[in-house]
C-alpha cells in the first residue's frame, strides 16, 4: 500500500488537469500578439472575445474532468498554499515586467520570471515532473539570451513564450493524468 501516492492523489489530480492550461496559454499568446499589434489581433475587440472564448473552453474542460475523473476539494492547507503561491507568482511577474520596462536590460526578466514562477508553482503543488523541468529550463534559457530588442518586445515576447510553455506543459500534464488515473473512457460505471 503506497501511502504517499494515495495521500498525494488529490494534489496530483488538481495540478494534472492540464487541458485547463490550453485556454490560459492561448490567452497569454493572444494578449502578447495584441499588445504587439500583430495583424488583426491588434484590434481592440479581439482580446475580450478571446477571454470569452477561453472562459467557455475552460468551463467545458472543467465539466469533462468532473464527469470523467470526478471532483475533489483539496484540504484547507493545500488551498491556502496554492493561493499564496499564486499571489507570490503574480507579484514576481509584475515586478519583472516593471524592471524590463524601466531598466532596459539585455535579457528578458519577464520570461525568466515566468520560468521561475512556473517551476515554483509545480514544485510547491505536486513536485516537479521531467517535462516541467525541461519546459521551464527552455523558457529560462530563452529569457537570458540577448536578442529581445526594446522593452515592448522583451515583455510581450516573454508573455507569448510563457503562454506557449503553459499550454505545452498542460498537454504533458494531461498525458500524465491519463497514466496516473486511467483514460477518460476507462471507468467502470457499473
Amino acid at each position, binding site marked *: 500500500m503506497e501511502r504517499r501516492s494515495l495521500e498525494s492523489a488529490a*494534489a496530483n489530480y488538481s495540478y494534472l488537469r492540464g487541458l485547463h492550461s490550453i485556454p490560459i496559454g492561448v490567452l497569454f499568446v493572444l494578449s502578447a500578439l495584441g499588445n504587439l499589434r500583430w495583424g488583426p489581433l491588434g484590434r481592440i475587440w479581439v482580446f475580450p472575445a478571446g477571454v470569452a472564448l477561453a472562459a467557455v473552453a475552460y468551463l467545458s474542460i472543467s465539466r469533462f474532468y468532473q464527469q470523467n475523473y470526478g471532483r475533489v476539494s483539496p484540504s484547507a492547507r493545500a488551498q491556502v498554499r496554492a493561493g499564496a503561491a499564486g499571489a507570490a507568482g503574480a507579484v514576481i511577474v509584475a515586478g519583472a515586467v516593471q524592471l524590463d520596462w524601466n531598466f532596459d536590460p539585455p535579457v528578458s526578466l519577464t520570461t525568466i520570471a515566468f520560468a521561475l514562477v512556473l517551476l515554483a508553482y509545480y514544485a510547491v503543488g505536486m513536485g516537479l515532473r521531467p517535462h516541467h523541468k525541461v519546459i521551464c529550463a527552455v523558457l529560462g534559457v530563452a529569457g537570458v539570451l540577448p536578442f529581445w530588442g526594446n522593452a515592448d518586445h522583451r515583455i510581450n515576447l516573454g508573455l507569448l513564450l510563457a503562454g506557449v510553455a503553459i499550454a505545452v506543459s498542460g498537454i504533458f500534464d494531461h498525458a500524465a493524468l491519463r497514466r496516473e488515473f486511467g483514460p477518460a473512457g476507462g471507468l467502470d460505471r457499473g
Partner: protein
Amino acid sequence: MGEDDDLVLDRLIHEPGRLAILTVLSSVQDADFIFLQRATRLTKGNLSSHLSKLEEAGLVTIEKRFVRKKPNTSLALTALGRERIARHWEQLDRLRNITQLSEEFTEE
C-alpha cells in the same frame, strides 16, 4: 492497556480497499465517488460495498445530491474516521520500526 494491545491493528481499516479509501479521504476536505474510484482503482461495486461498511462504522459521511441534474455522491471523513486512519498509519509505522529493529538485532 499494555504496549502489545496498542499494536493490535484495526481490522475494519486494515483491509486494503478500505485503507486506500480512508487514506485518500484523509488528505482532502471531500471528494466524489468518481474521484475516489479513480484514485483507489476499485470497481464501482467494491467501492460501494466498502463505503457502506465505513459509513456504518461512522468513519465516513455519504451525501447524495444532484449536480447539473445528474446524481453525485460526495464523501468525507468524519472526525472519528480522521482519528482512526491517523492512528492506524501510526500503528503500521511502529510495527515497521519494530520489525526493522528486530532484523538488525538478529543480524548482529
